[in-house]
């Protein structure tokens, strides 16, 4: 019985419920339960992802430093920043698409994350190195110089947050992830700056800094995922089971085509672009896109139907629940 929150073993687990009249009062084994109902929103895949991302970016950074050392390239902070930012940005922004198994989101994440992250990394690393060199010239304090160096994480975090927003093409997601980037940047700046004094071996220091930054960023991103979220679709069966598709664009296409926003190609009896969700003042409205394919809301065949909280949408074999605040 590992997770009492997910599986109610018997009635007595729920607070405030009468247990005396409960006819079944016996332990139930929890082992065979489908434990990953929330796998799309669970913390564990994010932890493994953070580890994988930090290891890969660490390897890339080591390789680059080796090359710059061999060839004696100047401005190695600039190139190192570009590589770290590019790899971190593309992998972090592609991670959402990877965890929600949306191929075009992975593609957009790798593209936007790589470009914006590389720019942010190069800018942060190079600029702050130059500023720190100025401080070093005045010999104010070694601590002050170290503080300036540590702020590269803040710049990188903000740019990676912006890359996340570019993937989703939505102001709300951009705001959310820039806040996450700020949080991760401040946290990584503090922790990495303090740790820098303790660890003198640069190889270990690099790995540790990257792990700290990635972990903080992904945790902040996960926490802020539902911040100011108004409408979303909850998938209830099949490949996407447990996934929450946030709705914030004016129009969403649902179907089996690869450029559909909510791709349902693993389900049966669905047309290429089967239905669309259109935003109105009151929320979203589901519109059937093809008169020969049926779209159901609350198990009634519809052409166009404004949705309310708790409505069950059925498209082919795929089952969704529309949830909204208020």
């Amino acid at each position, binding site marked *: 019985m590992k997770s009492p929150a997910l*599986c*109610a073993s018997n*009635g007595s*687990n*729920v607070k405030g419920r009468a247990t005396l009249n409960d*006819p*079944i009062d016996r332990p*139930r084994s929890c082992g065979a*339960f*489908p434990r*990953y*109902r929330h796998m799309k929103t*669970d913390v564990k*895949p994010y932890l*493994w*992802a953070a580890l*994988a991302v930090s*290891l890969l970016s660490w*390897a890339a950074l*080591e390789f680059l430093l*080796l090359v710059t050392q061999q060839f004696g390239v100047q401005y190695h*902070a600039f190139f*190192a920043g570009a590589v770290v930012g590019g790899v971190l940005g593309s992998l972090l922004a592609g991670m959402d698409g990877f*965890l929600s198994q949306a191929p075009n989101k992975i593609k957009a994440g790798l593209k936007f994350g790589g470009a914006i992250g590389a720019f942010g990394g190069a800018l942060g690393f190079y600029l702050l190195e130059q500023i*720190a060199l100025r401080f070093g010239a005045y010999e104010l304090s*070694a*601590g*002050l*110089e*170290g503080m300036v*160096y540590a702020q*590269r994480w803040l710049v990188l975090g903000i740019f990676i947050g912006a890359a996340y927003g570019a993937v989703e093409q939505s102001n709300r997601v951009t705001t959310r992830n820039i806040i996450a980037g700020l949080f991760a940047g401040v946290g990584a700046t503090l922790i990495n*700056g303090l740790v*820098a*004094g303790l660890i003198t071996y*640069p*190889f270990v*220091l*690099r790995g540790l*800094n990257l792990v700290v930054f990635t972990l903080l960023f992904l945790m902040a991103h996960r926490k802020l995922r539902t911040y100011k979220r108004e409408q979303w679709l909850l998938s*209830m*069966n099949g490949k996407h089971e*447990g996934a929450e598709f946030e709705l914030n664009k004016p129009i969403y296409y649902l179907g089996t085509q690869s450029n559909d926003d909510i791709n349902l190609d693993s389900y*049966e*009896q*669905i047309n290429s672009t089967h239905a669309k969700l259109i935003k109105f003042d009151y929320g979203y409205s589901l519109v059937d896109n093809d*008169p*020969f*394919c*049926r779209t*159901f809301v*609350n*198990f*009634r*065949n519809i052409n166009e139907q404004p949705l309310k*909280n*708790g409505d*069950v949408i059925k498209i082919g074999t795929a089952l969704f*629940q529309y*949830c909204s605040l208020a």
Partner: protein
Amino acid sequence: MKRLTPIFLFLTTVQTAWAKDRFLGETDTADLFFILPLLVAGFAFIFFAKTRYLQPPKKQLGFWSITPHKRQRFFPVDETIEHMEPVVNALAEPDTNVYSNLSKITLTHKPQGVYLEEKNYKISILINRRRSRRTYLNDGDILDMGELTLMFTSTEPPKYEDKPQTTGHLIPRMRRAQGRPIKAYPSLIPADSRKKTYYLTKNLNFIGRSDTCDLVSKAKSIAPRHSKIEKVAGRYKISDLGTTGGTFVNGRRVDQKFLKDGDNIAFESVKYTFSLSGRPR
């Protein structure tokens, strides 16, 4: 603020804490051997996360509570559970109102599946958003009881009354829903099975070789504007438009004719079947 001041002083003044950053310090030759293992380990973690967490979860006989904005929980159902009371006790939050006598909503375990019967005087449960006294529960059925929403899951796939069509024209079609009837259009089904069925969605349809026609057939025997099918008082009338080749219905050359279900229409070599059922045959 008083508590934070020493921390702030510590952070800014202690030299060892904010030492010179060696983040981009020189690599040692020994570090060379770690690059490849790091890469391999990174990809291995991605693969591990994919195989362990990105598979659809296993199905099991039971109920999920899917009430919006409430925690989603699962309750397994076996032969010992004969009514809904233990299910609702386990899945409902303390502040969820359920307005029904749950011990009178019984679950019978039959070889065909779980059979749910509502034995209250007034129906207090919605199954798939409809009032229902008794039903076999299928995978993915939604149950509403007051403020609580449950979803039934089982290992068996949902049963449909008619099997999904696998041959012929593969237009995705669900089984007939209750409520509004299907809006069916009469159709022209080509004898050549490689061509598409044409649905007569308009009141006036032209058939010919010209691209301006509604049903375009590029055969040589067809005139640019060969014939028309128009809706007259609820029936469909085919008219020849003065062509040399002629329009044939059931083997006879016609000038004007009202079409029946199943009529064979021919423009010399090009043949169609007129179907009123709306379902391609």
